[in-house]
């Protein structure tokens, strides 16, 4: 079962001072400190907690750089709506788009119109499929991976409709290759992302062979490039700009999928730990009257992504007020959406499948024996979850011992140092 | 005839803990050694004929005999005080010459020492020494090296010998070890 999993970070071991902070923050208990920091590739869901929480910046996100753009003839940027929320209220998204064009993008694709369209498609899907409840949004790649890894029996609940960024990429590539009469491969579509997880979903999508998007650039990298240009543009007052920008209904804030379609029995949950709580309830069939769950790995949703400049509360405020100030809701052709839906245009290429679970052994009887061993070791451990052994909890440590990845004497409470009173 | 037939397998019997006491007579410079089975070794000086023996040192050791496990033959080692490993301290010493010759074959020479002075007290016979040699080599099982035992008569100057003697020096000292 040695499957390769792509991850959007590399570990710079020399920087690690062994503070073990990351180990405690990792929501899937994927990190271990054994002489040096390592992570269990099959458990990592690329939520970015380790990147955000390590004071030594040991985890370096792997992302596209501006250099990666050079290999394409025609460049299209798909900015996450979060990008516009990084600036003040007096900066209209169109100015931001203009700045993006100045740094070299040929075209800026708009995502919110498609979002509304997909929201409507989702509503239609819920109406026509009343049996599978609650559906879980496929929007956040980390959440999709969390389900694959820790909740394999919930993969069937992941909404089968693709995410706006992919549909936009698919659409723009088609449109521009026809318009410019060039090979779609020569068109580079880049997502301006608030989080590293998107990058993983591009490199190794859970639901299709390959992504429509060619790369992702962190918002914070783009920010530093376009901020001076935006200031220039603001100085050239009264300059006419084409107002072709659309605001979606929810637009970049929490709840935006459900808001855009007006779903009522809908939960929104942010943060991996909170999402786990909700998923646990789904497993034990506690959530009975909920139709749809919008789960996002970052606290406060995408505005809390690791690549954002502004703090999540301010960008959330910005987002809401930008829409109030400039917002107009663009109508879309509902008939067309339903036709597209029936043709399968919006659907994921294939359903999300569970990742192989970390069981001890494919043979259940051997696995049970190992489990018993683990329980016995666990009962001897202090259950203080101190983390000094390098595993996040005593329970995980017991498991590592049974797997032979750790020695029981690695437990500080059993070590000689402990007995000598050094701890 | 009986002995010829049995290829003896030896084991150690009659093991008695005791002390090896070394004494010196400062008049003639002779050194004497003997066993004491008392709980605390005697340290007082005493006169014996022309000698005035002074206590030089004591060490914990053992007395033992060897017995064949097959034919029950008992071989007494009353004259053996201990064995010491030759480290080649004296170029003129015959033991050292032998060691130089045998060292490439990983044969180590141990000196069986008995009572001092050599010429005044009864010593181990060559046969006893070869039995002792057999015993130790039998115990070494599948070893790549062998043991050769020689008499302390071969030692050039026993008083200056730096061989590593197997005895428990300082076993009973009551001072704290230095950390």
């Amino acid at each position, binding site marked *: 079962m040695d499957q390769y999993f792509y991850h959007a970070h590399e570990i710079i071991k020399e920087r690690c001072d062994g503070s073990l902070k990351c180990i405690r923050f990792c929501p899937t208990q994927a990190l271990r400190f054994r002489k040096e920091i390592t992570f269990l590739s099959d458990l990592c869901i690329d939520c970015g907690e380790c990147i955000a929480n390590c004071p030594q910046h040991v985890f370096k996100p792997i992302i596209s750089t501006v250099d990666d753009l050079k290999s394409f003839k025609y460049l299209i940027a798909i900015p996450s709506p979060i990008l516009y929320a990084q600036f003040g209220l007096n900066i209209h998204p169109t100015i931001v788009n203009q700045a993006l064009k100045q740094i070299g993008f040929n075209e800026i694709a708009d995502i919110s119109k498609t979002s509304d369209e997909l929201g409507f498609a989702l509503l239609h899907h819920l109406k026509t499929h009343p049996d599978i409840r609650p559906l879980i949004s496929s929007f956040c790649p980390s959440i999709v991976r969390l389900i694959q890894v820790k909740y394999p029996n919930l993969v069937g609940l992941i909404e089968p409709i693709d995410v706006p960024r992919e549909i936009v990429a698919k659409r723009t590539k088609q449109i521009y290759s026809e318009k410019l009469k060039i090979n779609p491969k020569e068109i580079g579509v880049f997502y301006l992302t608030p989080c590293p997880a998107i990058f993983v979903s591009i490199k190794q999508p859970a639901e299709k062979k390959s992504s429509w998007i060619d790369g992702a650039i962190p918002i914070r990298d783009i920010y530093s490039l376009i901020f001076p240009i935006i200031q220039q543009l603001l100085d050239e007052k009264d300059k006419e700009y084409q107002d072709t920008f659309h605001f979606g209904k929810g637009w970049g804030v929490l709840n935006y999928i459900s808001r855009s379609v007006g779903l009522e029995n809908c939960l929104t949950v942010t943060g991996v730990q909170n999402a786990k709580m909700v998923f646990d309830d789904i497993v034990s069939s506690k959530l009975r009257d909920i139709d749809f769950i919008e789960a996002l790995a970052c606290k406060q949703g995408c505005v809390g992504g690791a690549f954002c400049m502004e703090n999540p509360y301010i960008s959330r405020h910005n987002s809401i007020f930008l829409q109030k100030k400039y917002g107009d809701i663009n109508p879309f052709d509902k008939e067309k959406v339903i036709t597209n839906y029936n043709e399968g245009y919006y659907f994921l290429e294939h359903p999300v499948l569970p990742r192989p679970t970390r069981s001890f052994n494919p043979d259940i009887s051997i696995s049970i024996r190992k489990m018993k061993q683990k329980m016995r070791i666990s009962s001897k451990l202090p259950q203080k979850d101190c983390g000094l052994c390098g595993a996040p909890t005593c329970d995980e440590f017991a498991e590592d011992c049974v797997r032979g990845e750790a020695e029981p004497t690695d437990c500080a409470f059993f070590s*000689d140092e402990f007995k000598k009173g050094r701890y | 005839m009986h002995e010829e037939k049995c290829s003896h397998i030896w084991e150690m019997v009659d093991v008695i803990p005791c002390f090896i006491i070394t004494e010196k007579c400062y008049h003639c410079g002779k050194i004497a050694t003997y066993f004491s089975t008392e709980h605390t070794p005697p340290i007082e000086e005493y006169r014996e004929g022309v000698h005035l023996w002074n206590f030089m040192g004591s060490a914990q050791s053992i007395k033992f005999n060897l017995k064949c496990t097959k034919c029950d033959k008992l071989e007494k080692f009353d004259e053996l005080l201990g064995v010491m490993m030759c480290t080649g301290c004296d170029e003129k010493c015959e033991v050292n010459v032998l060691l130089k010759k045998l060292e490439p074959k*990983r044969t180590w020479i141990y000196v069986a020492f008995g009572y001092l002075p050599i010429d005044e007290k009864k010593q181990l016979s060559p046969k006893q020494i070869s039995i002792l040699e057999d015993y130790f080599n039998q115990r070494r*099982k599948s070893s790549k*090296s062998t043991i050769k035992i020689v008499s302390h008569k071969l030692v050039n100057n026993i008083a200056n010998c730096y061989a*590593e003697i*197997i005895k*428990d020096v300082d076993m009973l000292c009551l001072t704290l070890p230095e950390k």
Partner: protein
Amino acid sequence: MQLIEIIEKLNLKTLTNVEERNVEGVFISDMLSDVMTNAKSGNLWLTIQTHKNTVSAANLVNLAAIVITHEKEVPQETIDLANRFYVIILGSDLSTYELVSKLVGIGLTP
């Protein structure tokens, strides 16, 4: 059990040259006379004696190795002598009893 395996599992310090040897059983005593009498060929000898005549005793009965417990410092002359006579000396910072506890853990039982 192989000596190298034990060294790795118990995290023992190697104070002399080390070669691959088979370890059969463990012997604990601080008395050299006791070693001469009771230790068996191939034993691992746990002791706190660091005097160089330990080498003499270990060589005589062909012990697998000497393990000096309690973090005791071993004099250089002992180490030199051991290297010359192919006697292996190892070190551990555990007490004799604690080391036994670990030896049992890795399966070296009487």
